[in-house]
């Protein structure tokens, strides 16, 4: 009762073991990487949504303050995260008819490629600008009667 009795050479046995192990490990890695990527995308989207809604609320508050009689100096500051899920992101104020409201926020990251739009409830016009994460200020320009989102 030796290995010779089973008609299998040691070399074949090693190759078989290595092959099955490799297939299992590659399968596990592919599945885990895909899962992590999906979760990362979803988490990024959620975080962009939250940041967009908070900034939109600040713009709405600045709008209310700016529309009081005689308002000349209005600024609301907010600390937003510099990066989300390890990626930098950008916030753009847009007015091109593709958003949920006339003026809207478009938040996006390059990796993963995620874009989120959030509506803005503002009667006062906004300057269409783009800012990054970090400390953000919503400012009122009384001369132009416009709100501007800028990095502090």
């Amino acid at each position: 009762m030796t290995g010779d009795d089973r008609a299998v050479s040691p070399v074949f046995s090693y190759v078989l073991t290595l092959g099955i192990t490799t297939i299992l490990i590659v399968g596990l890695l592919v599945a885990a990487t895909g899962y992590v990527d999906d979760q990362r995308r979803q988490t990024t989207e959620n975080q962009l949504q939250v940041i967009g809604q908070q900034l939109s609320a600040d713009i709405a508050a600045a709008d209310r303050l700016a529309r009081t009689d005689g308002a000349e100096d209005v600024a609301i500051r907010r600390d937003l995260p510099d990066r989300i899920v390890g990626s930098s992101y950008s916030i753009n104020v847009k007015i091109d008819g593709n958003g949920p409201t006339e003026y809207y926020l478009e938040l996006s990251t390059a990796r993963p490629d995620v874009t989120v739009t959030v509506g803005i409830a503002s009667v006062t016009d906004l300057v269409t600008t783009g800012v990054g994460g970090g400390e953000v200020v919503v400012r009122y320009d009384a001369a132009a009667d416009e709100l501007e989102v800028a990095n502090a």
Partner: protein
Amino acid sequence: MADVKARGQLILVTGLLIAVVLIGLALVVNGAIYTENLSTRESSDEPREALEQRHVTEGDVQSLIDAANRNATTDDYGMVRGDFADGLTQWADSQRVQKLLTGRFVSTGLNSTTEGTQIRQANASRNFTAGGSLAGDSDWTLVENTTDVGPFVLGIDRASLLNITDFDTLSDPLAAVSDNAFHVSVETPSGTWKVYMFRDGTAGEVYLYVVDPGDDLGALSGISSLVSNSCVAGATGSSATVDFREPQFGTDATDCPELGFYNTSVVGADHDIHYRNARTSATGLGLLGEADRARGTYEVVVDTRADRTPYYGPDADASPRARSIIHAVTVTAAFRSDGVVHGSDEIEAEWSVVQ
């Protein structure tokens, strides 16, 4: 031995890849937790506080105007304004100290004040002729160049109004009304409105008829047409109220749309207010003799300094009298907190009587 080395490398590389995946997973989980944290944070109350502070400022400045006007005993605008400015300084200091305790900075300063005049006749038995050095004048000017008017109310003794009973027997009854009925003339650059008041002594009703710019009382077909196009107050009570700002007329002050011109076309425009035919002597008209055509009380608050010539004063019981009041005020205000800055250069407050 060569095979054993190869298997070791595979395990090593695999372990490294799994470690990278785990780091990625940790990053994702961390991001998710941070998102949860961010999304459940309460929104800042600071913008709301800034708006609240503004409303408090508006209300309290108005209270200060009320107090300054109420306490003014002389017809001296400098004193009224001085009292108000002192009150505002004290209030602003107390607000600043109070808000500093909560980490907020607020400041309030006086920007401008508008002098106004309160014109009032409180003696209900006096006619509507002028006082002061123009005492007895039947046709006179209450105020010139006013824009924003507060209350403008007349309480007229119904029995004093021109009685148009039997006017149809006159050859030109409308001319008799035009020449003798008391009326308020409101003169603007775009035209003059005349608000006539008269009564029917038989029916006991009193009437209010408005002649618009460009129109003429004489263009009506007769007394019946005049009456049918007037606001009517029934035969109850001894006095009739004319309220230009509401606009209402009658014993119970019911709506009188004809008076609506004052709010829609006059307030906001530069205008003069005159009384006409407060007392007339209609010689040649058998039905009429010299008599008052309006008696009672009136009050009007205007946003300018009225000429004091036709007024007595400044005693409170003098009729008619005029006294200086603060009509409106603008203040500057600022609110600063950690996240919010709100500065206003012109918060306006008016005397509560004017609103």
